[in-house]
């Protein structure tokens, strides 16, 4: 089985996210970089699928040269091939990103053979456009369902069963392969890199490509911090002694019976 995972390099913020003075980006001074938790789980899923069914896993990223780091992270947990589309910026809009990824996937497939499964994150950690995977899958004419939290492959290898968590349970989709899915955190438990994995990641040959995809119709103007309605916190008390005040509050809200 040949599995591709698309990941996007993003800053790794702490409990607060700061914006640069010009409002054009997240202030990444002193921040490391990472990918969305959804995409970390996507990489783990790819490695597991190849462990179970044989084959090869491949990671694809579009952005800046430094996204090499995310390719090597993928290798450290067991992904064996990598392609970086270096466009010198993380600022390509979703349509342009999807066109460039589609082109890159076509040329990888021409060289190495078609992918059975292409895995995306449900949405990117930062800009959250909720569409790059869907656009790419449609351009490649692969069935695609987003928000997937469980996957299994049929015995004959022809169908991927994908489960989406809903309020009361799961929706089940059965996609003919080759197909694409967008996955959510929780679908797998990402492993930690082993010593061997770290070595493999150092040796990984990252294929670097370019792209001349045309821009789409969405343009970012600037980033803002959402206004917060700052309410004065009412301190109900300290320790167990505060319990009666909490019960009073619950009664007031009609939530105590």
């Amino acid at each position, binding site marked *: 089985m040949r599995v591709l995972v698309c990941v996007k390099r993003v800053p790794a913020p702490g409990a607060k996210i700061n914006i640069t003075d010009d409002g054009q980006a997240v202030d990444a001074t002193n921040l490391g970089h990472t990918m969305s938790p959804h995409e970390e789980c996507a990489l783990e899923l790819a490695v597991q699928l190849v462990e179970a069914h044989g084959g090869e896993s491949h990671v694809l990223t579009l952005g800046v040269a430094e996204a090499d780091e995310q390719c090597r992270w993928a290798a450290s947990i067991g992904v064996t091939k990598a392609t970086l589309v270096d466009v010198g910026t993380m600022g390509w809009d979703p349509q342009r990103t999807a066109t460039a990824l589609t082109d890159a996937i076509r040329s990888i497939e021409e060289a190495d053979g078609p992918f059975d499964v292409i895995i995306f994150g449900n949405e990117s950690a930062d800009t959250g456009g909720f569409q790059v995977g869907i656009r790419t899958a449609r351009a490649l004419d692969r069935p695609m369902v987003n928000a997937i939290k469980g996957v299994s492959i049929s015995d004959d290898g022809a169908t991927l069963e994908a489960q989406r968590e809903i309020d009361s349970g799961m929706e089940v989709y*059965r996609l003919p392969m080759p197909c694409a899915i967008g996955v959510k955190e929780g679908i797998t438990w990402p492993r930690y890199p082993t010593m061997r994995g770290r070595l493999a990641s150092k040796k990984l040959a990252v294929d670097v490509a370019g792209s001349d995809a045309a821009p789409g119709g969405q343009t970012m103007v*600037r980033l*803002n911090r959402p206004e917060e309605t700052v309410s004065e916190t009412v*301190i109900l008390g300290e320790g167990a002694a505060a319990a009666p005040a909490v019960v009073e509050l619950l009664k007031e809200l009609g939530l105590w019976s």
Partner: protein
Amino acid sequence: MSVLVVVEHDRGAMADASLEAFVFARSIADQLGEPVEALLIGADAAGLADVCAAHGAVAVHHAPIAGDYGPEAYGMVIASLAPVLSPSGIVACGTDRGNEVLAHAAAELDLPFVANCVAVTAADEWELTRVQWGGSLNEEARLTSTLPIVSVAHHAVDAEEASAGATANVMEHIVELPEWASRSLIQDRVVLSEGLTLATAPIVVGGGRGVGSAEGFDVLEALAAKLGGVVGCSRAVTNNGWRPHSDQVGQTGTRIAPQLYIACGISGAIQHWVGAKAAKKILAINTDPAANMVVKADYAVIGDLFEVLPAIEQG
């Protein structure tokens, strides 16, 4: 021209989130001086026309395709009807289904799609405010498109009826879908819980790293049971394997909107906060009076959750 709302429903049951899309669509339609219309997809959605009318749709378009929900089929219905109805904008709510259906439609139409907006200034070019980082930041964006397609961030506006008792003109549209569009229909459903869920419970008792262990959640379970609520948690908890990921509240978990969220031993990192802030009231229980959760909450108790929670439960 009109602003078209794509209605989300599950086998004929209206999703509450759709009602938020109507409110958002009305705010855009008012700027343009145009009416709101609704699009119902699926034979099983026929009964929803009156709800659409009550929420402001003067006309309801119904594409009675057979079968269960499927992102590609629904996306193709929108893409096929867009040139027929030629709306000045298409709006849905930014749920799993809402965002994916609009993305499929936009991909087919080769048009931009802007997900999770919180405000729109509609003129020749639309100016939008949309959320980034799951709601931690806002992005101002410009949209250049012959047909703006946008979703409104879930919980960004409150649902509100427009004209109770109104009725709408229903128009049926027969859409011939390509065969491939049925490859991603829902094939089956697994029911896991009949009762309250994180997304719908009136009270959520959330636990963070401060709970310390899987067993530590017993006191939260006990209080949740007593109050008729459910237990949620932070990512620190799921990362430690103390609770399943389906209990996680936040950017990459569930967005909750209960009457009351009781956040115990949770520091209130922005990625957690964005999933909890739609709660009507928040009570933080934390040993640290300076914790973000305490500072942002409506109410707080400063102390050890293992002393506070049992005391509340006993009344």
